[in-house]
């Protein structure tokens, strides 16, 4: 079974530039998550999708971050414009179960962003 795929693995940009990350969850997984992991910290949820609808985006800095999951499969996370403090690993995860009684989350390897 293929795992959660993310790209690119690494990205270096200058502040005020834009960047986009892509995630393809495990086939059949209805729930998709984007987490931000800053160096030395645990991952923090940015946004959670159930199929193509948003379940929770309360921690997403909406002035600069956006995410979509068209057709309820793969997803894109965009940052525009980037700030220095956005340097982090962006983790995508997916889960088979619907929200409220979830099972295991399966994580991708992450996309490491460095903002100079």
């Amino acid at each position: 079974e293929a795992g959660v795929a993310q790209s690119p693995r690494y990205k270096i940009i200058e502040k005020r530039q834009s960047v986009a990350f892509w995630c393809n969850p495990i086939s059949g997984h209805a729930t998709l998550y984007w987490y931000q992991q800053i160096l030395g910290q645990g991952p923090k949820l940015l946004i959670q999708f159930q199929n193509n609808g948003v379940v929770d985006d309360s921690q997403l800095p909406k002035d600069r971050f956006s995410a979509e999951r068209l057709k309820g499969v793969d997803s894109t996370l965009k940052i525009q414009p980037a700030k220095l403090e956005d340097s982090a690993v962006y983790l995508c995860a997916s889960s088979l179960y619907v929200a409220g009684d979830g099972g295991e989350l399966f994580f991708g390897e992450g996309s490491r962003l460095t903002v100079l």
Partner: protein
Amino acid sequence: AQSVTQLDSHVSVSEGTPVLLRCNYSSSYSPSLFWYVQHPNKGLQLLLKYTSAATLVKGINGFEAEFKKSETSFHLTKPSAHMSDAAEYFCVVRGTGANNLFFGTGTRLTVIP
């Protein structure tokens, strides 16, 4: 609100000796708790989970954890460390409502040959 506190940011053990990674949780209800492991440049992998069944939970690679409600703890243990256990370990609690996970700050395990 749910949260977890990992008491050690870094633990160092010799190969073949026991491993103890400590985690305390805070929850207003009976929590679901997890341990995830993250090897360098790899994704997070579930080690084990507690969901109000048996208080002693066995996971992969010889790890286990015991849920102690009276101590609000969920410590991770392994009888004998292996070099391949060197990684970052996260204690995690599930939030209410949506299937959201709240991560601790992580414990880096170093295994000395």
